[in-house]
């Protein structure tokens, strides 16, 4: 699914003294079935841009087109609906909910879809198997190591079988060996047909052979 951004702007605290233009007119296309990386220092606006592509927030102005569909002015209800079926998210700090088991954490994104419980569990277990985590299914997430937590987060991102995976600074909490392993997983996912968008300022990521395209951002504009 082609992602087209046209003159995207995003402003915070509009009309107040601390008004801040996080994105100042970005036009970009992302090809399907590729690994693209947004590179830039923190505060460059890459995460904000990614959250708008991922339907987590709406641009102040500009158009975002997802395949045939214009998503930039959809209300939250529909934006969420698009997001649930199209995107999977991997966050910097994994963002697993403590106190819940690995299995429950993975199934969280699917709850509002109202699928039968048995089918949910089956899908989740299948994913865990795929990522060598079958034995951990009933453990609380607090017991996991960094690498395992990362893989659980990937399983959670995949539970609704999204076409596009979004990873925000995925290697910030991993050592270089695990980062390397992570990029391997990304490669596999891309092979299996997913489109992948990553933000990072880690050379392990943007210099990796897995990444097809690097877009550099600075102060809310695209440099290249």
């Amino acid at each position, binding site marked *: 699914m082609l992602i087209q951004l046209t003159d995207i702007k995003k402003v915070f605290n509009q009309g107040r003294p601390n008004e801040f233009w996080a994105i100042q007119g970005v036009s970009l296309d992302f090809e399907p079935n590729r690994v693209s990386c947004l590179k830039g220092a923190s505060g460059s606006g890459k995460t904000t841009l990614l959250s708008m592509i991922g339907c987590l927030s709406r641009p102040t102005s500009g158009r975002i087109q997802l395949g045939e569909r214009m998503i930039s*002015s959809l209300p939250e209800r529909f934006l969420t609906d698009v997001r649930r079926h199209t995107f999977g998210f991997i966050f910097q700090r994994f963002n697993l909910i403590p106190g819940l088991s690995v299995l429950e954490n993975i199934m969280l994104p699917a709850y509002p879809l109202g699928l039968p419980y048995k089918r949910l569990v089956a899908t989740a277990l299948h994913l865990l198997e795929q990522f060598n985590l079958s034995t951990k299914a009933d453990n609380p997430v607090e017991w996991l190591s960094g690498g395992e937590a990362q893989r659980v987060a990937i399983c959670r991102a995949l539970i609704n079988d999204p076409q596009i995976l979004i990873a925000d600074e995925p290697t910030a909490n991993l050592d270089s060996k695990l980062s390397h392993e992570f990029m391997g997983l990304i490669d596999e996912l891309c092979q299996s047909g997913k489109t992948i968008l990553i933000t990072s300022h880690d050379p392990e990521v943007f210099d990796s052979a897995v990444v097809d395209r690097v877009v550099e951002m600075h102060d809310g504009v695209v440099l290249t």
Partner: protein
Amino acid sequence: MLLNPAIMALVLVLIVVCSMLMLASGFAIQVLRHWDIESGSERQLGLERRTYLISTLLIWAFSFELMSLLLFIYNAESMSGQFVGAMCATGVLNVNGWGWPTLFLKMAVFFSGAVWLALNYLDNQGYDYPVVKQKYRLLLAILPLLFAEFILQLLYFTNMDPDVITSCCGTLFSSQAEGVAAEVSGLPPRNMMLVFMLIGVIVIVNGLRVALRGRGSWLFALLGGTAFVVALMSIVSFVSLYIYEHPHHHCPFCILKSGHDYVGYILYVPLFIAAALAMSVGALSSWREKPSLTLTVNRVVPRLSSIAVIFFALFYLAAGWSVWASNLTMAEVW
């Protein structure tokens, strides 16, 4: 009388509902003034978030309103022991001039609430908030109705004088007395029965037409409203007679009592649901032309009308059964 707990609850509920609606109306005015779906500005995003709050407030407010309608009748029923001459809710409603208007306003607010909720549902189905302005205008129109209800109810409860001898169902709903109630009771049962059955058949046939073909929704809403009024009149005019098995007892409330197996609930609950649904169908169908709603309207209208038809059918079956199973024969009276 204000110190009776049930009355305190009723007054409390309306105070709460009024404040909820006022809060919602405040937001509604902002929405009407600043709404711009094309914009992604923070104000627009804020307004869109507020719509969640307004919906929640109003869903609760209208459910409270429905409960207060039930509690109002229930309370009138139970207070009948405190007034000379009152044997059931009729007598208590007759204690002063405000009782009946309060009841009718409560019913009006109930139906407008139902229509509002239907519109709200519809609005949430369209990706561009297609009826957002209309639904908030309707909300602003409901607000005065609610205030009126609050004031009338307060007048009703504060002016209850236990020393006044009130007239109960025996006098109010008697064909010899004067007034609307008496005229309804005095309607010739045979003709009334014909009208009742006729409109029943028409409304159900029309509802089925809407359910199957998706056409005639406005007519259905109109017929639903008419059927509702005719049904209430028929209950007073002849259905109650068969339930009480007494040729002159026309009361619409005594049928809610345990002595008559609570058959009143089996009549009223489906009737109210069916009428509310029929009116909602009318309100929904007028938005078929909006591109973002065509699908939803075409999906929801038939479904709602089939549910309405089921409830109408339930009501007519219950009424028919009450008449059929009764030991009363009206041959000599007519």
